């Protein structure tokens, strides 16, 4: 999990884009996916997603995310074709309109989720927050909240594992349970996990205050985030994606 959303260092074209541009590109892909109803165009957008992943030099990760999304997509697909009653029946209770809608929904889901996951693979969280504060003038407090939340994910998992190990050592058979049973065993862990997390968050806030949290301004960040020709190209490409969706 941590690994799936973690940053992969690199110096690819995609890595070198301004973080703001990356987010803009992501949003453009999402918007295009929702504007267009054309199946071919949607398939094209999916290809764009995959190409971006490959260009970023993280093909393995791209495919892992893709495969993970496909599983969810298949489930959604089944749900859609069984639920939609409009249109002419093609086979059993499945209608042509149901099939079409299902394909669109599934394509959109994959198209939208892929770049969101990829952005975190090619951008450092600190660059993301710093550039948002510097370039987009997002208040630092909000940016800090976001980056801290993401930073806490691995720690949260670590702590969860710790609690589970402690309970396993006292005879709770997490390893043997599956599905709903396992879920009902994990549920009672939420209270200790929540309490320790809240306590820790308080301390982290204190640590930030002790290192000048309140003194930070928009210009504080050491790194600068200028826009380059590469960013311009990516912006034009993003606009083209949306224009294409409107026209086709």
């Amino acid at each position, binding site marked *: 999990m*941590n690994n799936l959303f*973690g*940053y992969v*260092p690199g110096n690819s074209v995609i890595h070198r884009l301004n973080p703001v541009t990356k987010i803009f590109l992501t949003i453009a892909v999402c918007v295009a996916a929702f504007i267009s109803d054309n199946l071919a165009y949607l398939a094209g957008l999916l290809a764009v997603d995959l190409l971006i992943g490959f260009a970023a030099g993280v093909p393995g990760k791209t495919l892992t995310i893709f495969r993970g999304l496909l599983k969810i997509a298949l489930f959604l697909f089944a749900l859609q074709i069984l639920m939609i009653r409009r249109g002419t029946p093609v086979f059993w209770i499945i209608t042509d309109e149901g099939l079409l809608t299902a394909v669109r929904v599934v394509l959109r889901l994959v198209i939208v989720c892929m770049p969101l996951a990829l952005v975190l693979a090619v951008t*450092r*969280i*600190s660059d993301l927050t710093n550039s948002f504060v510097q370039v987009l003038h997002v208040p630092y407090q909000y940016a800090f909240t976001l*980056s*801290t939340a*993401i*930073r806490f994910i*691995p*720690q949260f998992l*670590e702590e969860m594992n710790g609690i589970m190990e402690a309970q396993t050592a006292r005879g709770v058979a997490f390893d043997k349970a599956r599905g709903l049973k396992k879920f009902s065993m994990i549920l009672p862990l939420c209270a200790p996990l929540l309490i320790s997390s809240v306590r*820790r*968050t308080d*301390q*982290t*806030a*204190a*640590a*930030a*205050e*002790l*290192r*000048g*949290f*309140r*003194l*930070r301004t928009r210009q*504080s*960040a*050491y790194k600068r985030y200028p826009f380059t020709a590469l960013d311009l190209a990516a912006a034009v490409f993003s606009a083209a994606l949306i224009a294409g969706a409107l026209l086709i």
Partner: protein
Amino acid sequence: MIAIRDLTFTYKDEKNPALREVSLDIPEGGFLGVTGPAGAGKTTLIRAVSGMIPHLYPGDFYGSVTVNGMDTFETSLAEISRQVGTVFQDVDSQIISPMVEDELLYGLENFGVPREEIPERIGEALRKVGIPDLRYRDIASLSGGQRQKTAVAAIIALRPRVLLLDEPTGELDPHSSLQVFSLLKELNEEQGVTVIVVEQKIMLLCEFAKQLAVMNGGRIAFQGETREVLAHAEEMQDLGINIPRVTTLSRALSAGTGREQPVCINLDEAEAMVRGLMK
């Protein structure tokens, strides 16, 4: 440098004070070791000097704490922390960034250290704690000890005048513990940084601290030059504090030989004493 006068502090919603009538004076360039059983008020003392009490932890505050002429009650936390660096006991909650370099950058950026100075400060701090190779690593992939060193590096990069550390060697092996204390000594002696360190490993305190304070039940039970404080070895043992073996040895020899022997606080002194007696 630091003057605490009759400080009594009770956390909000708590009945009993965590600190009771504590008075301490630490001169500029002092190196104070604080020890004592769990719940003695050591962490609360650190919080009081760092200004977290009263600014972040509300409660009943009597007495005064002055750091380099600033009354912590009246000075803002940001202003105090320009001069006072604090390393928490729970290192994981102290670390803000996902990457080692970012963690060091954070304070430097906020306090407005000139841009051209920043790379050198980061490199130096990492070198001093002995982890220059971890600069671009993910914090999540580090061991407990490496995280502890990162937290210390992030604070010393700020070059504070006063350094507060709450059990900085909790996750460290004996070699690294020694390394951290040697670094504190270096900062203390060469740059005149005032150091307060809470530590359970009394042997380290005896070897490095100039002054010692033993806390119990929110009060300072003993304080003074390390050697003076160790003269109270028996009472300290009753509080559950480990006494260095060399000190125990010198006391046993005093009782055994019927002659008062000097209180030993490190191995060299003990060796000299034993050699002297064997002549």
